[in-house]
């Protein structure tokens, strides 16, 4: 089946327009990060009058970016590790066992993903504050509270994606291990998990990205010491000045790792994510 000339030109037009749409903000982010402050305070220019890395230096002192970065790294990685660990056990149960309530569990877990975040925000806020006053366990405005909250945000999709991966691993392997006398946990760790490494990595990246990008709860459940990047980056616009070049530089720095991770793992990530979304 050959492509007609019309189709070829149609394809080129569509792809050019979409690429321009996607690229424009990315281009502005990169070039503006290399601009001196004067450039971003005047009318827009396509190219820095004098390319400089000054914004990448200044951005650390305008706001406590280092602290926000450490908070985000800590919260996101701990949440991701816990979320994936919990999801592995749950996915193994759903994939390998028939039990009463299996369908109900899947439906409930997945549907929580669809509920509006604002629905949980007010009650959780009140619950965290009250647990704090009643028991002294600080969940409100602490990194622990954020970690616990975020790990449940990625849990439903993580479980769903892992069930998809586990299902694709032949049960013959399990049975062979069981014949050799391996119990369920040994089967999971020595047979199923090694075969599902790409899926586990993809799910970890997904869980990390979910926590790294969360805004709603971060805006309410943090204070100055536990603030994450999602809220911290707004500190560059003060009453007197908006340091757009530093905002773009900081945005670039916090975006590059997750975008790179996503693009490197694209294949596994996309497969797992669509399996979760489409099934």
């Amino acid at each position, binding site marked *: 089946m050959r492509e007609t000339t019309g189709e070829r030109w149609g394809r080129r037009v569509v792809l050019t327009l979409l690429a321009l749409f996607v690229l424009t*903000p990315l281009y502005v982010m990169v070039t503006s990060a290399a601009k001196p402050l004067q450039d971003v305070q005047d009318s827009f220019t396509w190219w820095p009058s004098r390319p400089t890395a000054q914004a990448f230096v200044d951005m650390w002192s305008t706001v406590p970016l280092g602290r926000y970065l450490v908070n985000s790294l800590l919260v996101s990685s701990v949440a991701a590790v816990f979320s994936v660990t919990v999801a592995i056990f749950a996915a193994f149960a759903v994939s390998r066992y028939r039990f009463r309530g299996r369908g109900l569990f899947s439906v409930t877990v997945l549907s929580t993903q669809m509920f509006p975040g604002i629905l*949980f925000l*007010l*009650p959780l806020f009140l619950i965290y504050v009250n647990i704090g006053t009643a028991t002294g366990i600080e969940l409100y405005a602490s990194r622990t509270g954020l970690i616990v909250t975020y790990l449940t945000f990625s849990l439903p999709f993580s479980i769903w994606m892992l069930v998809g991966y586990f*299902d694709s691993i032949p049960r013959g392997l399990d049975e062979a291990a069981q014949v050799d006398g391996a119990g369920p946990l040994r089967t999971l760790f020595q047979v199923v998990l090694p075969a599902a490494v790409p899926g586990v990595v993809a799910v970890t990246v997904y869980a990390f990205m979910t926590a790294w990008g969360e805004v709603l709860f971060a805006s309410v459940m943090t204070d100055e010491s536990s603030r994450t990047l999602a809220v911290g980056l707004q500190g560059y616009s003060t009453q007197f000045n908006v340091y757009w070049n530093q905002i773009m530089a900081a945005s670039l720095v916090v975006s590059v790792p997750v975008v790179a991770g*996503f693009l490197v793992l694209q*294949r596994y990530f996309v497969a797992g994510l*669509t399996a979760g979304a489409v*099934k």
Partner: protein
Amino acid sequence: MATPTRAPALTGAHPGDAAARPPAVRPRTRRRPLLPYLLLAPALVLELAIHVIPMFVGAFMSLQELTRFHLRDWSGAPFVGLDNFRDVLDVDGPAGAQLLHSFWVTVAYTIASVGLSWLLGTAAAVVLQRPFRGRAVLRALFLTPYALPVYTAVITWSFLLQRDTGLVNHVLVDQLGLLDERPFWLIGENSFVALLVVSVWRSWPFAFLCIMAGLQNIPTEMYEAAAIDGAGFWRRLRDVTLPMLRPVNLVLVLVLFLWTFNDFNTPYVLFGGSAPEAADLISIHIYRSSFETWDFGAGSAMSVALLLFLLAVTAVYLLITNRRGRSHA
């Protein structure tokens, strides 16, 4: 994504398919009936603690008078029945009128954003269907907005949309001369359009990704057969591609609808916490009225009403699509 070998079946298999899931009941599982529950327990406890219980607590809060005075002493908050609902849903009162306005803004925003995201996603997936040089690069580029943390993407857009220093006005006014005056994009009526563009930029890659996965399940023979019948591009799109994408599209549109309707991040970051009236989405409306007035009772009532509305829409959607699906079969 080059034909993922270990990837789970993308669209063909349904969770309940007998073929996709050989019966897993074995003597071992019968001897350990507790094991699956133990494996599930951590996930279950977390889901209950952070999602299910707060949901019921939220429903309970919506029946309480929970103003600033009662927040510190929650147990002492009086029970007021449906008063909160009466206040926030009375479209003749000030709170109800604002909520109704916000509801219509959200409906318009959701329809436009989901429609455009689906359109762009389909267009990109269809033109990237056949291999050519540079296809992998374009695919990675198109997925980038989805991989970016939402706040950096939206902050960058808010820079583009600045009246005096932004790219958008520079191009429209200075370079193309389409407008005489520099319009404000982030306040006033234009803010709706600004919000919509940013939202589509963020969410169309997800549509692209799902449709791309769905296209891989269409056998090439179907296109060859259609081509032999003399079907051109549009005929093939209408008679092969779109019908084969139906299962993917049904889920995709529902997921996009729910995400977009509940969208908080885009307006919150774009407008810095205080959305202009023309772009006052429902999530940000509830957020602002809860934390400005500290009336958590009213805020919870609005949240519960939002949830009931979404459940009703989802139920009707599933009912209609299931019935249509069955009559087609």
